[in-house]
């Protein structure tokens, strides 16, 4: 199993009464709550945490994209990923991902991801989400009725830009480019592995199967709830005669580890309640713009992650924002290393997921606790779960970097001397 360290980059200083005084954490979140001087420290802490995770032995570090969002301070994951490409050496860099329909032209994504793939020596995983309604339709003003068509067209354009070595013209419905000829091209051939974060849309599952992409269910509500979605995914794969290779799938899971369950409850109570109480305070007004969800999905009565969160946010008394409820509902795997390892093995087996993305930092967790949680996982959980699936399945969707000895190493020893210039 691949163990991947995921950061949402939540703003860690939303006030105690945030939930009571604000309609939501997204789109129209009170801009006066954002303190750039504090964010300077937050960003640097978060990047320290990502870099630390990369040194601890995680297979990948993951970043993602959100806009006008109090729990996701990465409008451009590519900016963070480019820094990580320089500051890390072995971990893969999972950009999870770029919302394709937001970029005009989408070749910008092809270029930026290719740049990061070059800088990192071929360590990029290219996540291509449609994007949440809040990010795409409200914060970025995209027409929800056109969003998916734009997304698919952008995907086609990016893939062609990555794979065709002759300049070409692209006459799409939404993108018309006389000259497509990106410089640089990605290191990985034919292109970096493409992973698709999605909700529970049957069409997305079918598309992943058709394109042979990894489907990722980025759930905030733990594997107990995620299980039904993943079962739906695997049933569809079976129907389409796709093998049950667990590496076709990814899943996001919160974890909190300490020497004992009691200690873990004590340590992670505040950040967990901060995340579920304040960060997931999602205003249902922005959860379902018309056209965002396809009619087929509506007919299948499948609800997306954001809509679920929004619905929970309005169901007073049913929202698990208290630690005990959060644990009882299975949102967070918590406990001693052995307990978490057991839960994780069970969840991975049940869901048949080979790419486990772990949130070791969540809510207002500080850098020290995030590092402790990361270290505990890396040293005492990871060795217990890493072997899962590897004797049965091969991961065909993992990056293929340039061999380490052939990769560039950031040079901190440059001194600008003439002797060096003459070499």
């Amino acid at each position, binding site marked *: 199993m691949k163990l991947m360290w995921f950061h949402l980059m939540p703003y860690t200083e939303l006030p105690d009464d945030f939930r009571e005084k604000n309609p939501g954490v997204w789109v129209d979140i009170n801009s006066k709550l954002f303190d750039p001087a504090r964010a300077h420290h937050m960003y640097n802490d978060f990047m320290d945490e990502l870099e630390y995770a990369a040194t601890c032995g995680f297979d990948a570090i993951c970043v993602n994209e959100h806009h006008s969002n109090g729990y996701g301070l990465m409008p451009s994951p590519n900016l963070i990923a480019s820094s990580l490409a320089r500051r890390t050496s072995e971990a893969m860099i999972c950009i999870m991902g770029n919302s394709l329909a937001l970029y005009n032209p989408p070749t910008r994504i092809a270029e930026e991801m290719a740049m990061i793939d070059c800088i990192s020596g071929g360590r990029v995983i290219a996540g291509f989400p449609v994007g949440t309604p809040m990010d795409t*339709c*409200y914060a970025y*003003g995209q*027409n*929800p*009725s*056109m969003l998916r*068509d734009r997304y698919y067209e952008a995907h086609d354009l990016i893939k062609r830009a990555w794979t065709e070595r002759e300049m070409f013209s692209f006459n799409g*419905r*939404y993108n018309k480019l006389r000259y497509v000829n990106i410089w640089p091209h990605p290191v990985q051939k034919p292109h970096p592995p493409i992973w698709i974060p999605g909700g529970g849309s049957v069409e997305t599952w079918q598309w992943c199967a058709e394109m042979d992409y990894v489907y990722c269910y980025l759930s905030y509500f733990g594997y107990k709830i995620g299980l039904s979605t993943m079962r739906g995914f695997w049933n569809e794969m079976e129907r389409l005669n796709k093998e049950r290779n667990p590496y076709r799938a990814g899943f996001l899971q919160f974890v909190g580890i300490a020497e004992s369950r009691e200690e873990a409850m004590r340590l992670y109570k505040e950040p967990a309640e901060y995340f579920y109480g304040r960060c997931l305070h999602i205003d*249902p*007004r*922005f959860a*379902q*713009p*018309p*056209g965002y969800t396809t*009619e087929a999905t*509506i*007919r299948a009565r499948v609800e997306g992650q954001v809509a679920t969160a929004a619905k929970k946010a309005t169901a007073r008394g049913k929202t698990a924002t208290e630690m005990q409820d959060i644990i009882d509902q299975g949102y967070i795997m918590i406990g001693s290393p052995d307990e978490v390892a057991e839960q994780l093995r069970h969840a991975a087996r049940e869901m048949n997921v080979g790419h486990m993305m772990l949130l070791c930092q969540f809510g207002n967790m500080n850098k020290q606790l995030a590092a402790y949680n990361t270290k505990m996982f890396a040293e005492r959980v990871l060795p217990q779960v890493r072997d899962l699936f590897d004797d049965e399945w091969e991961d065909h969707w993992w990056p293929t970097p340039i061999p380490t000895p052939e990769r560039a190493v950031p040079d901190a020893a440059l001194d600008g001397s003439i002797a060096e210039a003459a070499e």
Partner: protein
Amino acid sequence: MSDVQQSAVRVDGADFRVWTAGSGPKVGVFAGFGGLLQWTPFLCKLAETRTVVVPSLPGFPGGGGRAHVALDSQLDWLLMVREILNGAALEGEDLIGISLGAALAADVTAIWPHKTKRLVLVSPLGICDGHAPIADPWGVTPQNLPALLCANPQALEAHQKMPEGADELEWEVSQIRANEAAARLLWPNGDIGLGKRIGRIFCDTFIVWGAADKVVPESHRPLYKNGPCGKVTERVLNGAGHQADFDCPDELASMIDDFLGN
């Protein structure tokens, strides 16, 4: 209740429902948000003195299924709407548009000025004032939309109530689809470029605003009143919100009837 005849107009392979009722001079009606799920008291009243012809717009109930998804630009919308009007034999007739229907009625009149006899715009959309944007109809939950659109939301809610025996899922899908069609036309701020073209409206135009319109700020009214080159008459209807046809059906129909005369 008027005796309503139903026919269809075929445009680009899709069938668009046309309801017709009443007798007398012909008038076309473009409905507002959500389109029309059934004949309304407003249309009933209007049909007392006129032949009322109500073509469905793309994506709205009766509007060619998902015909709206082929429409990428305002030109696409207008060409399809023009064809629907022609097919419904409304060329050269009086035309009423309500809310988003008014946006299309105004724009189609601006593009083909001589094909509309007289124009009635009820709470029109289509022009954006960046300093005072319209209220966001997609920035409220669907449950709260009737209260945004109407001073008396019960009338609209009653209209949208599923009839006995109808398929619940299909009923829900048809309303979501109508909402999507509206979004496809107006997202994100209702600006369809009408501000550039409204000066091409040369016919007599009657504009009605609901006094309690919560969607269109009062500051927008001059943009519509002063835009057309033809004679513009403006009235404000007390007790009405944005969808005055649901709030004050009889009063609105009478006002329009007075304007159109014989």
